Each structure stands twice: as structure tokens, then as C-alpha cells.
């Protein structure tokens, strides 16, 4: 365990316009991409809001065959991976493909295609013994989420270890943690790592309806997701992908690569308590934060910014606020804490990587993105949530956290290249 892992390329397909810079510009302006769902007719649903990507796979540069064989989630990942590769300046022909790995975080696989194809082969739910005659040839790639890693590996020319990390809504952080481990242990020099999900479709929307976890501000979609605000009423589903080129530090230096940040520490913990519930005392997320700081050998009071999970449910916001206080002590009150989910929604397995992208860009650009729609203080959530407007700040250490079904909590610590000696 000697290698150090740095991010040298970032690609993003987030709600709104695709691309890293479009994403960054949107979130620092505090603009929201939440709107009435257009991917299907949401009329019969309890929550009819989503944060959707304005994404045209052909315009985004995918080939006809790529489009045909991939789900929307795979398309996001391909576009983000190519942007990350281009951004890093890595020349795949100059690299040993055996030393390039892939880890793709994902929550619900190729969910839209699974559902669309189900409707066809079951004749819209009429047949339990579904009709093979209507089977699409790529159906097997939809049922397995691992096809997402296959696509990214092909795009990156990777022949090292490749996998999909699928720990629900923590997958976007855990996939980066997995990549860091591959680099530290010396298995790979470069890992194309990130996450993707495209869950905005009837079955997933129904699930969150049934759980009463999604926002019902159907008349005001732009302001529907209100993390940490007293009037919050649930999460808004999102979609998208963020992919990174994560590289061993010396490898990056040798080729003169631009370094966004180091992934200095990572940790995952489970609550061992409930598949969807969180303890109000913030214990498990606090433990994940502490363990990530320990791995990074960073003191809690060195953190300059916490990029929050901030899903906009009362349960999360209180758990998370308590977690910062448990793990950072009084320092929790001194740092900005913001949730970009207010703008890009909750894209399940992908959001952890999209938030890492925001955190890395925050370090790079010296700017803390805001929490949009934060207006009314909740007495139980009394930290500085950066309401509405971005802030300039020198950021040396940024924490990003996630929490998800299955009882998982993860935390990652990113540090500025200034700290690399």
C-alpha cells in the first residue's frame, strides 16, 4: 500500500446540459434542473418531478451501435468516460492496457431498458410467461449491471481489473474507493472510475412513491428539493453519470498531467439496523467520516467544506447534521455544508460520483457550490448550508458523503494538489 491516487480527468453527464463545464456552471449559479418528468407521462404518479439530463446520445457522439446496445445509463457512462479521458490527456495508445482498470458504480442497473423490454415481452404486463419472440438481442446486457463496466472498459481500452460496484446509493463513492484501492495496492496505474444511473422511469418512481420518500411539490418542480430546509418534503429523483481518470501520483507526474485533487481517504460503514431507515443520532455516517479522515491522516478541523448527501428527506437531513457534529465536533459549525441534490436531484448509484465531481471542481475552482432552495431554518439542522449563492474559498480538504438503501454509509476525503509534497 504505497501508491497515491489522484484525479486527473473528469467527465460529467448531469441533469441539465451534458458536460463537465455545463454542470459546474449550473450548480455554481444555484440553478436547478428539477422539472416535471418528461421521460414518461407521470400523471398517475404521486411524485411527478425529476432532475433529467437533456441528453441526445447521437449528439453526444455515440455511435449507432453503441446506442442500440446500451441503456440510457450506459450511454451516460460512455459519454462521461470519454470526456474524462480527453480531459486527462491520457493517451491510451501510450499506456499498457493491462494496467488500466475500471470500476463503475451503479444502483439499479439498466433499469429503463429492463422495464421497457419487460413491457414488450409481457405485452404490457399481461403475460407472466413472457414472449421470447419480442426479445431484444441485448436484453442480457440489461439484466446484468456489469455490462456498464464492459462499455466503459471498451471506451477506455482497459484490460486490467474491471467491475461494477453496486452498493445502492453509496455506489458512486464506493466505486471511487475501489479504484483507489487498486492503485494503492499496485494492481493498476490508471482506473477509469465513476458511476452512472438512469432511474427515472415508472417502476423506480413507483418505489419512491410507495415509500413516500419523494417530493410531492408537483406544482413547483424547480423548488421541490429543499435539503436541510424546514419545509423539505422529500427527495427528487435524478439521473446521470460522472467518471474520473484516477491515476497513481507518480504516473500522473511522469506524464505531466494536471491534477485536480488527491483521493486521500475513503471509508464505508453499514448501519446494521434497517434497509431504509437511519438512526437520528447520525452514528453510522459519523463513523464513516471518522474512518475516512483516519485513512487520509487528516484532522477533523482541517476540513474546509463538506459536500453533503442532503437528499431532502427529514430523516436524512437530521441524521447527517448529527453525523457532522459527532465526527467533526465544533468544527462542523465553522464549515460550509452544501447539497447539490437540490439542483441535480438524487441519481441513486450515480450521485456519489457526481458529488465527487462537484467536490473536485470546488477545489480546482476555489468555489463552494450552494444549496439551492434553502430558505427556512430547521431547528434540528443548524449548520451553514450555503443557501442559494456560491462562495469563493480556498479549499484544501473536502469531504463528500453518501447514504443509501441497504444501510450503507460512505465518506471520501479529497485534498488539493497544493498538499501533495
Amino acid at each position, binding site marked *: 500500500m504505497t501508491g497515491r491516487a489522484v484525479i486527473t480527468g473528469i467527465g460529467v453527464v448531469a441533469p441539465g446540459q451534458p458536460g463537465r463545464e455545463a454542470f459546474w456552471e449550473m450548480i455554481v449559479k444555484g440553478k436547478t434542473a428539477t422539472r416535471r418528468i418528461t421521460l414518461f407521462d407521470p400523471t398517475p404518479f404521486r411524485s411527478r418531478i425529476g432532475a433529467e439530463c437533456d441528453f441526445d446520445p447521437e449528439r453526444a457522439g455515440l455511435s449507432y451501435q453503441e446506442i442500440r446496445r446500451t441503456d440510457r445509463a450506459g450511454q451516460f457512462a460512455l459519454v462521461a468516460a470519454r470526456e474524462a479521458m480527453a480531459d486527462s490527456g491520457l493517451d491510451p495508445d501510450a499506456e499498457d492496457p493491462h494496467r488500466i482498470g475500471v470500476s463503475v458504480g451503479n444502483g439499479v442497473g439498466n433499469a429503463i431498458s429492463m422495464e421497457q423490454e419487460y413491457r414488450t*415481452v409481457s405485452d404490457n404486463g399481461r403475460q407472466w*410467461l413472457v414472449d421470447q419472440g419480442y426479445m431484444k438481442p441485448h436484453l*442480457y446486457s440489461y439484466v446484468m449491471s456489469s455490462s456498464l463496466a464492459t462499455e466503459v472498459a471498451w471506451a477506455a*481500452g482497459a484490460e486490467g481489473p474491471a467491475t461494477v460496484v453496486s452498493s445502492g446509493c453509496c455506489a458512486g463513492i464506493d466505486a471511487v474507493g475501489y479504484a483507489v484501492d487498486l492503485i494503492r495496492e499496485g494492481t493498476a496505474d490508471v482506473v477509469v472510475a465513476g458511476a452512472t444511473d438512469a432511474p427515472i422511469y415508472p417502476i423506480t418512481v413507483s418505489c419512491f412513491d410507495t415509500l413516500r420518500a419523494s417530493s410531492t411539490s408537483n406544482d413547483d418542480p424547480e423548488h421541490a428539493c429543499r435539503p436541510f430546509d424546514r419545509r423539505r418534503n422529500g427527495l427528487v429523483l435524478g439521473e446521470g453519470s460522472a467518471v474520473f481518470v484516477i491515476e497513481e501520483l507518480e504516473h500522473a507526474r511522469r506524464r505531466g498531467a494536471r491534477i485536480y485533487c488527491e483521493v486521500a481517504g475513503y471509508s464505508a460503514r453499514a448501519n446494521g439496523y434497517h434497509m431504509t431507515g437511519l438512526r437520528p443520532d447520525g452514528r453510522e455516517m459519523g463513523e464513516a467520516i471518522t474512518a475516512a479522515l483516519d485513512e487520509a491522516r487528516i484532522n477533523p478541523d482541517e476540513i474546509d467544506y463538506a459536500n453533503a448527501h442532503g437528499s431532502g428527506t427529514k430523516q436524512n437531513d437530521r441524521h447527517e447534521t448529527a453525523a457532522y457534529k459527532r465526527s467533526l465536533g465544533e468544527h462542523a459549525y465553522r464549515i460550509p455544508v452544501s447539497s447539490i441534490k437540490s439542483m441535480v436531484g438524487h441519481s441513486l448509484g450515480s450521485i456519489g460520483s457526481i458529488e465527487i465531481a462537484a467536490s473536485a471542481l470546488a477545489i480546482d475552482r476555489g468555489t463552494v457550490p450552494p444549496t439551492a432552495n434553502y430558505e427556512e431554518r430547521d431547528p434540528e439542522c443548524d449548520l451553514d448550508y450555503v443557501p442559494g449563492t456560491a462562495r469563493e474559498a480556498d479549499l484544501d480538504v473536502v469531504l463528500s458523503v453518501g447514504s443509501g438503501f441497504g444501510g450503507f454509509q460512505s465518506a471520501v476525503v479529497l485534498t488539493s494538489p497544493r498538499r501533495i509534497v
Partner: protein
Amino acid sequence: MSVPVITGLGVVAPNGQDREAWWQATLDGKSGLGRISRFDPDRYPVRVAGEATGFDPAEHAPQRLVSETDAMTQYAFAATNEALADAAVVPDDFSDLDMAVITANSSGGVEFGQRELQKLYREGPQAVGAYMSIAWFYAATTGQLSIRHGMRGPCGVLCSEQAGGLDVLAQARRVLAKGTRLVLSGGTDASLSPYGLVCQLSNGRLSEEHRPERAYVPFDSDASGYVPGEGGAIFVVESHDDARARDVERIYAAVAGYAATFDPRPGTGRPPGLRRAAELALADASLAPPDVDVVFADGYGVPELDRQEAEALTAVFGPGAVPVTVPKTMTGRLYAGGAALDVAAAALALRDQVIPPSVNVRPDPEHRLDLVVDRPRETRLRTALVLSRGYGGFNAAVVLRAV
């Protein structure tokens, strides 16, 4: 850290629903393949599968947990109970943060999902049940095991189709190296609902042979594809030092080496990555090919893929130089559960000093493999190599070594 070792094993397989029943059936060459019974398969070209027929989830978990889970997770409940008992682990004796769960999954809870999709499209969104949110996704099994057994350390879920069952052992090794003391690892899958089967049909690799005894015959000149199965295996993995300190009754094997590779993008003309995975895993274990006493092959049953694997094996070991076996000829390919089950077979082979057979296979001499067929072969075994390939380009190899 000292080397990770397997100290507990639990199994649910088509030819045996606990470890010893399955192992005895495996040594006896008793296959669990048969005509699909979950539904009438007559309308499909594929009619043979390895079903865990007769499995009663209520024997292994409270009804409440059975209601909120798919079969894939229920198999893991059973296998975990058996593995923990086998390793004499009482979770209360450990700090909850010192234990973790890392499982592989491939198709998710597809039968549960098909039922809820049917409700959605026949009856509307309000008919979808609350448990859909926690039963269908790939992380369901790890989450449920973590909660049920109070294991709060760094949990994980990996999906690399069949290869995932080996990748999780490497991830277990990583978290042990960082200080976790005990990991539940392995994989289970259950993909045999009608929609699940049709999804699999689309990959073009399933056998359309209707005679169970001829349907899945890897390395045979009649090989015509594979048979899907369900079930898997769960392990208790801990460091050798910790296992000794606990005074465990049995250490099955050390996870001595591991490697994963990915095949070149189609069209590059470069060779597939299985051979490299095997060689890297041996190097990781600081062993050489002659040290290997048995290979548990991936055995896809697809002629071209059998040829590639045979070439990889003869390139690493020389023609016929090492006994090779494919006990999954008796279970079918269990996806994420399949490689895990092969690890279980390798561990028990080391325990009992016997190589379980491949059944129904008449080895094609062109492959130049010493395939152990029909009857078990008793021999001195110290080191086993387990190979696995996952659809889409994934390769993984694990070296197990007696300690």
C-alpha cells in the same frame, strides 16, 4: 496482515441444499439439472436448468424477512447461517464494526422484480409494494446480511457476472488488510423467472438441448452452450492469525492469490485475458504452475470459449499436465453464485483430498486437458486454482492453498 483464510462455508445448490449434501452429491456425480419446474418452459427453446427445487426459505429466515426478499437473498440467508455455524462464529463475540459483508450479484432479484413490474402495468403505480425498493436491487443481499447479523464494517457489492464470485474474495482480502476482522463473502443468484430466463436467452449461449444429461457438456465435442442455475455459496473469511487466535476447528484454505483481467475490446485481435488472470494469480500467490494440483475451470460449454480456456490452460501448465474439473456440470452456471460455488468445491476438495468429477462430459481430445470425469479422483491436493469468466469480458482467478 497474515493471509486470509476460509473458516466457514455454506452452500445452496441445485444438487444439494446444504454444504455436505451438495458435496456428497457432487462426489457421487449426482446432477441437479432437470426440466424447469418453476413454470412451464415448453414455449422456450431452453428447457433445462439447475433449480434449487424444494428449498424452503422459511427454514432459514423469519417469515418477515422472507416476505421482503427475492430467492437470491433467501439462498444467502441459508448459506450464511451454515457458514457462520461452520466457522463457530457468534457475531456477538465481535465488535460490529469488525465484521463486513461483501457479496457478488449478477441479475438482481429478477423474479421479485417481474412480479412488481406486472403489478405496475396491470394495476397501476399504487399497486407496487414497498419491498420492491429493497428486494430487486443488486445490493439487497449484502444489506440484508449486514443487518441480520449486525455486521457494520466496510460492506460491498460487486457485479462482474460469473467472475464476481471471485472478485469478492479479493475485496474481502482488502478490507481484512485494512483491519476488518471477519468478512462474509461469496455470492448467490436466482435468475429463473420467465423474464429472467428470456433475458438470458438473448445472450445466445444457453443450451437448447432438452436432455439434462447432454445439455451442459463443456470440453465435449457436443458442447452446445450452458445451462443456467441458481444458488451459490457464502464464506467466512478472516486472517490466518485471527482464525488461529479464535482456535477455529477447521481452516479450509488460504486465499493465497487472486487476479482479475478484462478481455480486449472485440476487433483488436489481441488474446483474451483468462490466461493472464491465471498467471497473475499464481504470481500473487508466489507459486508456479507446477505447484497447482487441480484447476476448477470456468467451463462455459460454448465451443469457442471452451477452446479458449483449454488453450489458456495448456499454455500455462502444458498439455494434460494438471487435473481439471468442472463440477458445475451438475449445477449449471449460477452466475455470481457460480464461481463462489467453485471456491466452495475447491475448499472441500482440499479438505477431503479428492477432486470432484465433471459429469456427462466426453472430453474432446483436441483440448488436451486431463479432465476428471464421472468419478472423483483421490489424490494429494495442496493448491487449487479456480477460474471464472463473466459475460462481457471479465476474467478472474483465485488460488486456494491448504494451510
